[in-house]
């Protein structure tokens, strides 16, 4: 194993089978029922609880924890899912340390919040293990809605509309549903095919038709959708990525971190996933951290995360930064890439140190690199959309766009953080707004 671990260049199978299995197992193993009771007992059942306010989907957290504590986890799951239909995924991927658990009064007083995320997973797993869907569809309204994109925002919107009795058609560009849940989230946060299982479970509500591999602007267009359906919800996410735009960024081995993560999520056999001995990831957000950690977990010997500003300015939370560091990722800050060197393939990357105002200092540093993953932001790359604002679809209220009958939410629209849970909230709220519009 050590031999392959040290192999130069980009190669697959750096680790033994056991190491892959261990590295890509659940980041937080599921609580067993006793652990869940112990964790639930710690909740103070706060009045007008700060954790609810901190949750983008306003889940009644004290109520669902009390339902777990009193031995009714399925009721707890319904409390969660009635606000957030992707509560199972959010329990796994939410940066709880900056949301509900940061607001928990026990975090404030003891530095140890109630394990809200893990309790949420306990409840939703318990219900979803029974493979029954807890919600019933209302009688059909005869109204039709097109949802573009089957990521968190699109699925959330589609489910709510279907539940309210509308007939929904979901168009998605890819071969599998789920959007970033399927293609973008780190593998160790949602192992064992959870993303697809959750989509299948969600669709049990009925009344949702799926049209796969339909790309907006190529296979379908907004004007036609708006003409055919009573309403349209746009939730395509961000399909483009920012380029490095430096000398040598066309060399082999320089790839987008988004593509690397998607490939990793879709590969069946992790030992077939090639990874460099030296990997450099550029960026400071969740995508950068996920790419860096997973490079390390695949057996890369040296992984460096290079970010142009300081640790404090990184979009990745402190928990994520610490997780990266604990896996052996070397975090370097105040570095801007200036050139990638190599003969056909990348061999090294050159950075310049910059000060707090992003002014170059003239001091350079070279890092050996077999692969360079860039994670410096994603873009909305599509034409014939409603009015944009700073590169995203401009929305007001619950996702209204500049075009009548067209709503938007999730990463492709303005407003909110680019989080799964925010997308779910936007999808749900747009659905309620669309519903109000359709039945008036």
């Amino acid at each position: 194993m050590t031999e392959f671990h040290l192999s130069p260049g980009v190669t697959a199978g750096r680790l033994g089978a056991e190491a892959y299995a261990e590295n890509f197992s659940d980041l937080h193993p599921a609580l067993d029922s006793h652990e869940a009771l112990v964790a639930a007992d710690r909740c103070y059942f706060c009045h007008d609880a700060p954790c609810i306010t901190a949750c983008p989907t306003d889940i009644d957290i004290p109520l669902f924890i009390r339902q777990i504590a009193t031995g009714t986890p399925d009721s707890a799951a319904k409390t969660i899912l009635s606000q957030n239909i992707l509560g199972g995924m959010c329990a796994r991927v939410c940066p709880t340390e900056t949301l509900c658990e940061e607001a928990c009064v026990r975090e404030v007083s003891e530095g140890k919040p109630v394990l809200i995320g893990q309790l949420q997973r306990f409840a939703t797993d318990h219900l979803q293990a029974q493979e029954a869907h807890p919600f019933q569809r209302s009688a059909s309204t005869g109204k039709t809605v097109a949802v573009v994109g089957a990521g968190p925002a699109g699925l959330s919107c589609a489910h709510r509309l279907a539940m309210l009795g509308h007939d929904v058609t979901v168009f998605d560009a890819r071969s599998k549903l789920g959007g970033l849940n399927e293609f973008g989230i780190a593998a160790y946060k949602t192992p064992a095919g959870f993303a697809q299982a959750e989509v299948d479970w969600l669709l049990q509500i009925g009344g949702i038709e799926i049209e796969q591999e339909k790309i907006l602007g190529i296979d379908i267009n907004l004007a036609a959708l708006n003409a055919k359906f009573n309403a349209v919800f746009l939730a395509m996410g961000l399909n483009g990525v920012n380029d490095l735009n430096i000398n040598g960024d066309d060399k082999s081995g320089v790839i987008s971190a988004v593509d690397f993560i998607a490939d990793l999520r879709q590969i069946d056999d992790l030992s077939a996933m090639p990874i460099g001995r030296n990997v450099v990831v550029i960026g400071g957000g969740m995508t950068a951290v996920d790419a860096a950690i997973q490079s390390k977990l695949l057996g890369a010997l040296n992984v460096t995360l290079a970010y142009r500003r300081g640790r404090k300015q990184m979009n990745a939370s402190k928990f994520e930064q610490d997780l990266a560091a604990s896996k052996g990722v070397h975090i370097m800050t105040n570095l801007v890439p200036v050139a990638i060197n190599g003969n056909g393939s990348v061999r090294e990357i050159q950075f310049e140190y910059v000060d707090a105002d992003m002014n170059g200092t003239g001091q350079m540093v070279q890092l050996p690199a077999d692969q360079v993953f860039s994670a410096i932001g994603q873009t909305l790359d599509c034409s014939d959309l409603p009015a944009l604002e700073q590169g995203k679809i401009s929305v007001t209220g619950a996702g209204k766009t500049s075009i009548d009958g067209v709503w938007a939410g999730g990463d492709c629209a303005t407003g909110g953080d680019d989080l799964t849970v925010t997308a779910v909230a936007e999808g749900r709220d747009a659905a309620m707004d669309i519903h109000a519009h359709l039945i008036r």
Partner: protein
Amino acid sequence: MANLQSDFVGIKSPNPFWLASAPPTDKEYNVRRAFEAGWGGVVWKTLGLDPHVVNVNGPRYGAIYGADRRLLGLNNIELITDRPLQTNLDEIKLVKRDYPDRAMVVSLMVPCEEDPWKMILPLVEETGADGVELNFGCPHGMSERGMGAAVGQVPEYIEMVTRWAKANTRMPVIVKLTPNITDIRKPAAAAMAGGADAVSLINTINSITSVNLDLFAPEPTIDGKGAHGGYCGPAVKPIALNMVAEIARDFELAAIPISGIGGVTTWRDAAEFMALGAGNVQVCTAAMTYGFKIVQEMISGLSEYMDDKDMTSTSQLVRKAVPNVTDWKYLNLNYVSKAKINQDLCISCGRCYAACEDTSHQAISMSSNRIFDVIDGECVACNLCVNVCPVEDCITMEAISPGIVDPRTGKVVERDYANWTTHPNNPVATAAE
């Protein structure tokens, strides 16, 4: 270090912590290990006449839990010893011989006739035991046969049997009282009238701990049925404390020594029982929950506390709080306090607000940034906010000094003590002369 040496009705023990008559004191093996662990004495599990009783072979205990399955209350349907009388007597003799400095009290329960008492008491005396405890408390099984609580609930029987016991032994006689009555002073008075050297209380409380909602049967369930059992453990401590205090502060009963029983789990519980009048304490559920080792904490804790209070003997602690137990009508109605929230300690959970707003006097305000404050003009000092606050000492009750206006009533707080007996709203008030 304070001396914990205890002398209870002439029975000496190195500390006031005895194991109560129960499964922990059922046999030689247990009692030897208890003494090795440091227990000051035991009350050997109740002996009866042969043929010995039998126990159920299904579950004998049921429980009430707090957070993290911390056992708060235990219910049992065990009976008295289910071993032959002679076996117990032989073992008692052996253990007492090897541990002469420990208290060895033997619990007894025989039918309500003088002959069985005449027969059994000399047998116990012969073991070298230090005293006997009459089990008039067991609320299940034995009471159906006219023993245990069936005796303890009839003061005349208590007096009669106590008298028989005193007439047939030179050993001190402790009468164990059942709490399953309306006024604990009546059975205590009966024991005293019968010549008892002391009373011990409380025995267990009639209880059904829970109902199995699949079987629709009480727990513990034996083949689909359940019977009420005896409740004990931390949950019963407040009931026991009150009953101990009722006896200790009764003018007629004040002279009778009390062995305090009921949910004693830590040294602090023991100290509370003693301050309310118990000369020593008996422990069972805590040992059954955590093992014999807990006595080490009880010994060190009580010693440390007594050192802090400059007490050198447990007798200085016994009855220390009795003068301050009074009737409601004598409480000072001119004493006014207000809740005060320490903002540095407050974690903004808002439980005080929910409790006060929904169920009390709407005397706590909540700001948009979750600052909680007491509205003195509404606060009646009920203490509910203190009780529901998860942070110790975050909310306290602060007395208003005499001469200051209470913003709730608009009246100046009086310096002088005044109670209900003289209050103008009391139709039978006696005018303060």
